[in-house]
């Protein structure tokens, strides 16, 4: 349907809270199908960086979809792991989008993507040690203050480790939560990719993960490569179906966490809507089989000293 013929939805009637259902990453390729067929899907997520223009079709479509479905913003450009100040222009644009679309959830990555003004468009790894933790804590606090809301931070997929790391990823994330009051976004595919690449047990990692702070789960497909020794090196490619091993980790997570909003990320080799929708329904079936998790009260903004159990 031409963009000019979309019947505007009456905004304000759709609940903005993200339900404990399956959602998908919203792609421009699917705008029209979604508006024409009104699929029964729980929610959508977008990268705010794709909606930082002043106007045009992207905002037009997103406004219509956000009027019909709950929306989550998932940033890829704030570079909270960088050893430099947050980019004021960038966080102001995030604030404007947060106010314009009032998303049910707002998340970012435990990663850096900018250095000396250059933006690398990739989620680069952070060593797990005290000085980087202090930096990330400062940046998460600043971002939460600026947006006047709690954000979720996602566990990364990593390909290398740092000799200088002094703590585990889980300890780093637990301390971050304790010092900022942020929540966590648990990406089960990242767990599998990182565990394979770093030779640790993903099941043990998930058993230790502080699921009580998880506000959202991500699932995606990975690609296979080989490292210098010819052993598996998995790439977080977001270009195919979720692997069976990752579905198993998802089951393991849900058994501990109860029903948590779950997103299918598929950003490359984007499939037809029906295939993406079917993948989301696979997660939805698992969520429906669970009792709804007792809702944790949203902590007040920016708690300086949140207890970690």
């Amino acid at each position, binding site marked *: 349907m031409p963009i000019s013929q979309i019947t505007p939805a009456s905004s304000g009637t759709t609940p903005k809270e993200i339900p404990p259902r399956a959602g998908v990453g919203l792609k421009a390729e699917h705008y029209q199908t979604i508006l024409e067929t009104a699929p029964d899907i729980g929610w959508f997520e977008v990268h705010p960086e794709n909606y930082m223009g002043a106007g045009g079709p992207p905002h037009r479509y997103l406004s219509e979809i956000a009027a019909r479905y709950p929306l989550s913003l998932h940033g890829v450009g704030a570079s909270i792991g960088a050893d430099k100040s947050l980019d004021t222009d960038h966080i102001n644009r995030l604030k404007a989008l947060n106010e314009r679309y009032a998303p049910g959830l707002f998340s970012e990555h435990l990663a850096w993507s900018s250095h000396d003004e250059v933006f690398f*468009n*990739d989620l680069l790894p952070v060593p797990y040690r005290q000085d980087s933790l202090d930096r990330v804590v400062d940046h998460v606090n600043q971002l939460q203050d600026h947006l006047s809301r709690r954000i979720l931070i996602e566990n990364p997929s990593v390909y290398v480790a*740092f000799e*200088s790391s002094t703590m585990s990823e889980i300890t780093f994330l637990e301390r971050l939560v304790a010092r900022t009051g942020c929540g966590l976004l648990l990406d089960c595919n990242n767990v599998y990719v990182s565990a394979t690449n770093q030779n640790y047990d993903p099941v043990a990692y998930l058993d230790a993960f502080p699921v009580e702070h998880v506000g959202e789960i991500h699932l995606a497909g990975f690609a296979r490569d080989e490292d210098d020794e010819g052993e598996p090196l998995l790439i977080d490619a977001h270009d195919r179906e979720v692997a069976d091993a990752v579905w198993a980790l998802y089951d393991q997570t849900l058994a501990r966490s109860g029903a948590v909003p779950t997103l299918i990320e598929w950003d490359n080799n984007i499939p037809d809507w029906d295939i993406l929708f079917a993948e989301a329904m696979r997660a939805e079936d698992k969520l429906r089989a669970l009792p709804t998790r007792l809702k944790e009260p949203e902590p007040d903004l920016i708690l300086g000293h949140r207890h970690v159990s």
Partner: protein
Amino acid sequence: MSASPSLHTGQASFSSALIKPDHPTPEDVIGPKPEKKAQKRFGVYRNNVIVSLTEAMMASFPTIAALVGEDYFRAMARVYITNHPPRTAILSRYGDQFASFLDGFEPVQAFPYMGDVARIEFAWQEAYHAADQSPLDPTSLQQIPPDRLAELTFTLHPACRLLASPYPAYSIWAAHKQDAPQETMASLPQEAEASLITRPQWDVMAIKLPAGGFAFLNALGEGLTLGQAAAVALEAAPAFDFARNLGGLLETGALAGLHLPSIDVKDQREPKPYQDNSANQHHES
């Protein structure tokens, strides 16, 4: 174990190794076990940076990719990315220097129009993401007393972009863009061309400007009055056709508002309502 680099030093060496393949894997970066190397592992990040930025450039410059072929485009993009990495996390704004890069890129000097084709493509990107605003209603000119028409000044639409090229850049772009009809390829003109790229509502459009059209619209954009702009255009091109040019600007929606010292007509910042008004838009008062 050597003393660990500061966070800043570590990220500095990680960064330079990312876009410079001759730089070694950063010192602090290791594999999961002492006997495991990190070279291919680090290579994943190098590859992610180049491939994802190349994809972003392919999306912004599809006609350049069609002109040179995908493999050649990827090779050119790698040189551009290495020398002009993004300064913004907004990828639709990346490539703002690609046109001037092409102007000076030795291997494509036999195709001197290429930079201007890239300028049209980047203007298209900018128009696509520009602020929404209703174009000037063509009938609003009828409210102006005829003896005061020459005093009018105009506001250009926020999506409006102008490009003058010493080459037939518009025709080359139009013949190679994605949905181009094949038969236009054989009959390209050989002269300089100016073009207008804008987005009156939701669809970006590009047109070739008639003689004097660039000077005329450029003068209006600088705030000259209609009378002054027409004089500038006539001086630039004796064949300048005033009625055709003004009619064209109203038709394409390149103008957003008009102003007389005592009368301001329709310079509204609101986008049009979402209903399709094409059937009745000529009857608005």
